[in-house]
């Protein structure tokens, strides 16, 4: 059997089997799902990109198979999926409806693989929708639909998916084929009006999944309310499907002369990232903070893709991979805190650093990667993005990105401080470190973040082959990508990452050794209750941590931007629609006589109009 089909059968069949297994032998469920996912990962990695499967359904020719671009995203999906499932076994322990949860979990991973292996628009859409509803079912898994977040997610997904579908059928009506290669080959032959319309409709579809402004309103709640083990996949991999789609559209369906679309997309993404960052800054719930942060980060990725330069696209894809790595780590870490402490409200928790040190380490590394500080991987992506934008003349765009990533320091610090630093409270004294099966995925992912900072070549190599399949030819030195440690821009400026790493680590170690050895004997640890407080004596039960209105001054500085949320506009629009619908409903007033009158009137109208318009 073709391994592509086997892959899908394993995923979907396995999902159903997990559901049934949970009914009869719940004990085996966890082992089964993890083994299944690992098996699928193995199968995925053994499936080359040359494997193609052609078949017809309903007279529609379809083709499956990975390209090197989708393979790159596939790696994200299977790696994150496996790790998140391992994490999930501990995280979800003791919750109910696990069969339901794992079924949808596996469904959505399977659907993502399906999306990536689709070489035609129909199977793309087919799996896209499976992904949508399976993720919807997980979003509402945790119970009551507070302010209808699940529905909002579904509505936006549906709008996105259907505009995609519209584009797909229009494309087909011109080209007569759904195959991506045919579409790419002949898209430029059709009228430019339709061409732009198709691109925009497709981008609405992908923009919803990648939570781009102004289609992002579902995302914060959906990310923050699904179980964290799934959010890791949701934000890490599922939103990347939108990015993947954007890549397809921007590189293959928008002609290069059409710079306006690229420009508009890039600016939308930039506004998304700035606003989402600002919203993230003012959140006090760690999950929502990360949710907004995800939106912002995907904004960078899309800016990179839309910059349409070699370095920019590489930066976008690199950030896509890396965002999957560090953001899922962060969601996992927050999930670990949620599981061990019971809340993620940062105004309630503080000082977990000594209780959950490994979780802190994973969070710290991921945050450094997120903030884009050298020497971790985030810096590499950010650097490439900035340089790409600067060298290609997107001067103001780069300022937006800078604004967003500088403001990102604020929430980066917030999340570390809010959960791990600050006063160590006696009420958290009993908190224990998360179980090993939650820590290991986090630490593995953190390791990738670290490694990618000095030796990004091992990620850039698959990215480069992905870009070749998007039609970008390298103009950079690329003999030994694995060892690539020097980044270049097109002006020839460079950053030598190993030098950076050596310098930072060297100075850090020397300084650390110095400060530790100097006066080692008289070095004292004191509790966080013993702080200088103008002489006031803090009792153990006094919480002196500063948590509420953390960034109030900043909030005051940017208040014009926060005055009215886009969400409100949608709510008003929805209310208006419902009122209109209620009005329409009055047509059926329940009175039989009226219905009879309608019939007569309609007939009369037809007879009158019929002679005029229908040519009798």
């Amino acid at each position, binding site marked *: 059997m073709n391994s592509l089909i086997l892959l899908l059968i394993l995923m979907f069949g396995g999902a159903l089997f997990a559901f049934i297994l949970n009914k009869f032998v719940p004990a085996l469920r966890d082992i089964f799902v993890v083994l299944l996912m690992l098996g699928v990962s193995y199968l995925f990695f053994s499936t080359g990109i040359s494997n193609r499967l052609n078949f017809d359904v309903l007279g529609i020719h379809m083709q499956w198979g990975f390209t090197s671009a989708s393979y790159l995203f596939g790696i994200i999906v299977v790696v994150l999926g496996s790790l998140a499932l391992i994490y999930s076994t501990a995280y979800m322990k003791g919750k109910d409806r696990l069969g339901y949860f794992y079924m949808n979990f596996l469904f959505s991973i399977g659907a993502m693989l399906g999306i990536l292996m689709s070489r035609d628009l129909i199977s793309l859409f087919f799996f896209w929708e499976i992904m949508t509803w399976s993720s919807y079912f997980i979003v509402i898994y945790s119970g*009551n639909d507070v302010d209808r977040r699940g529905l909002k997610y579904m509505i936006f997904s549906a709008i996105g998916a259907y505009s995609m579908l519209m584009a797909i059928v229009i494309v087909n009506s011109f080209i007569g084929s759904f195959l991506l290669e045919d579409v790419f080959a002949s898209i430029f032959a059709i009228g430019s009006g339709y061409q732009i319309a198709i691109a925009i409709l497709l981008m609405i579809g992908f923009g919803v999944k990648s939570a781009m402004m102004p289609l992002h309103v579902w995302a914060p709640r959906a990310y923050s309310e699904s179980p964290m083990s799934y959010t890791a996949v949701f934000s890490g991999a599922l939103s990347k499907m939108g990015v993947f789609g954007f890549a397809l559209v921007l590189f293959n369906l928008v002609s290069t002369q059409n710079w306006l679309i690229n420009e508009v997309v890039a600016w939308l993404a930039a506004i998304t990232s700035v606003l989402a960052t600002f919203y993230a800054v003012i959140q006090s719930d760690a999950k929502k903070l990360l949710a907004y942060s995800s939106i912002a980060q995907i904004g960078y990725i899309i800016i990179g893709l839309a910059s349409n330069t070699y370095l920019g696209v590489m930066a976008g894809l690199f950030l896509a991979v890396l965002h999957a790595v560090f953001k899922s780590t962060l969601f996992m870490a927050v999930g670990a805190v949620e599981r061990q402490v019971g809340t993620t409200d940062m105004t309630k928790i503080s000082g977990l650093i000594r209780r959950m040190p490994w979780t802190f380490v994973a969070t710290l590394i991921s945050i450094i990667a997120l903030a884009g500080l050298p020497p971790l991987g985030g810096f590499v992506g950010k650097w490439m993005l900035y340089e790409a934008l600067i060298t290609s003349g997107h001067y103001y765009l780069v300022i937006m990105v800078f604004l967003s990533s500088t403001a990102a320091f604020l929430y980066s610090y917030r999340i570390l401080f809010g959960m791990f630093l600050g006063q160590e409270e006696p009420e958290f004294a009993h908190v224990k470190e998360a179980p090993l099966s939650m820590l290991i995925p986090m630490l593995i992912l953190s390791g990738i973040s670290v490694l990618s900072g000095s030796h990004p070549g091992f990620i850039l190599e698959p990215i480069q082959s992905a870009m070749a399949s998007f039609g970008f030819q390298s103009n950079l030195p690329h003999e030994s990508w694995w060892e690539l440690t020097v980044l270049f821009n097109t002006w020839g400026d460079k950053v030598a990452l190993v030098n950076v790493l050596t310098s930072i680590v060297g100075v850090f170690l020397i300084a650390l050794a110095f400060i530790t050895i100097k006066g080692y004997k008289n070095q004292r640890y004191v509790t966080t209750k013993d702080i200088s407080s103008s002489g006031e004596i803090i009792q153990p039960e006094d919480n002196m941590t500063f948590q509420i209105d953390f960034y109030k001054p900043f909030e005051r500085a940017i208040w014009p931007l926060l005055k009215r949320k886009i969400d409100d506009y949608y709510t008003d629009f929805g209310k208006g629609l419902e009122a209109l619908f209620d009005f329409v409903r009055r047509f059926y007033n329940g009175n039989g006589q009226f*219905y009879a009158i309608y019939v007569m009137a309609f007939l009369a109208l037809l007879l009158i109009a019929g002679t005029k318009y229908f040519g009798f």
Partner: protein
Amino acid sequence: MVISPVQYIAIPLIAAFLIPLFGKLNKELVRIIPGLVLLYLSYISVVLMNQVISQNTMIVEIIAGWRPPWGINLVFSPFSGFLASLFSMLGFIIWMYTYNFKREVEDAQTEKFYVLMMMLITGTIGIVLTGDIFNMFVFLEITAISAYSLTAFYRERDGAEAAFKYLLVGSFASFFILLAIVLLYSQVGTLNMADIAQKMPDVNPYMKGVILMLFFVGFGIEAEMFPLNGWAPDVYTQAPGPIGAIFAGMVVKAGIYGLVRVIFTLFDVHEIFPLLMIMGVITMAVSEVIALRQGKLKRMLAYSSIGQMGLVLVAFGIGTHEAVFAAIFLMFNHAVIKSLLFLSGTYLVYHSKEKNISDLDGIGKSLPFTSFLFALGSLAIVGLPPFAGFWSKLYILMAAADVRLIAVIAIILAVSVVEIVYYFRVLHRIYFRERISTIEIKIPSFNAKISMLILAIVIIVIGVYPDLISGLIERAATDLLDKQHYIQSVLSVGLH
């Protein structure tokens, strides 16, 4: 016994009249006989369809030795045969569902129920199979009368009111169709549809228009076209659950069959297609929008059903081969899926007086199987892959795109979003609310479960592998569009 299409009409009718007699012998026979009959009909459907498809002909059955165009005849063409097969199989599944339905309370009325149900099914099958326009009117009346009675089956105030509305509007339908037939006969002097189609070019265009409009409105009422569908929501709500499934799955389909047969074969005027499409779009948009604001489950399903019929009309109105294919596919999908929704939905609100959606809160835990099937049906009806509804919607869109009806595509998709909203709202209530309602729940009987499961499996199988049925539908679409072939096939029987 030689298998012939006439058995579709004869056996169920005979059975319907014999049921009370058998009821005297044994109560249980009343329940069993319809099943046997429908099973047999399903069997002959398979045989006949096989014959029709493999030999690429259509079976024209002459009744009482009168050859066309003079006598009454039955035409088992790929299109009508497909619908007849669908109706008989669906009928069998619904019979399986009804076997134990409300047994404890309704025992005394069982006979009546099954007699009416058999008549209803006979009527619908008759509509699609007949080759005679007046005969079609007769079957329409059989259908209508049994439908009126079934609507008022529970002998409640609301039921009676709904039946009355149906009767009121339905009698308009009968009147218009009869009037149209009379006028038509005055013009062409024949009642055989093939013959009419052949002679149609001779008809005075003005007269032609009037007749067509009368047919349009008459069948439009049965096909639940806006603004003629005022009766429908009440009827769906008040009729017993499985009857709702029959309405949605068969009666409406028969109405649509009548409409498209008249438009495509008898008149073949392309000027009417835009009207059909526009009416379809309006029907769809208005009813889906109203469905969003419904508080009662069955009313919501009813409006949704109307909306789907609107979509079918749109597809027929586009009129290309692809569109007709999509329309027939959607008719099939809708019959299966909406039946599943009605059947499972009935158990979800089994004891609820008001049948409010809010009564469903948290029922997913008490009725996991039924709720699951309902959820599956909901996902399928809104056209989410990998369920059957997706492919038909896709084909309709493709057909619309091919003739550049971008606005229609946009409206269909916008309406689909509305559809998603109200179905998912119900699903959310089923699964993610705490159960507060004290209404007793009813566990479906085993046979009901089996019948629903069959429908669900059909939905999934068609969804994953639509080619299983696309061949049949393809032939049906070809048949509908190929007017000459129809005329020749029917009339050639007459010439021999």
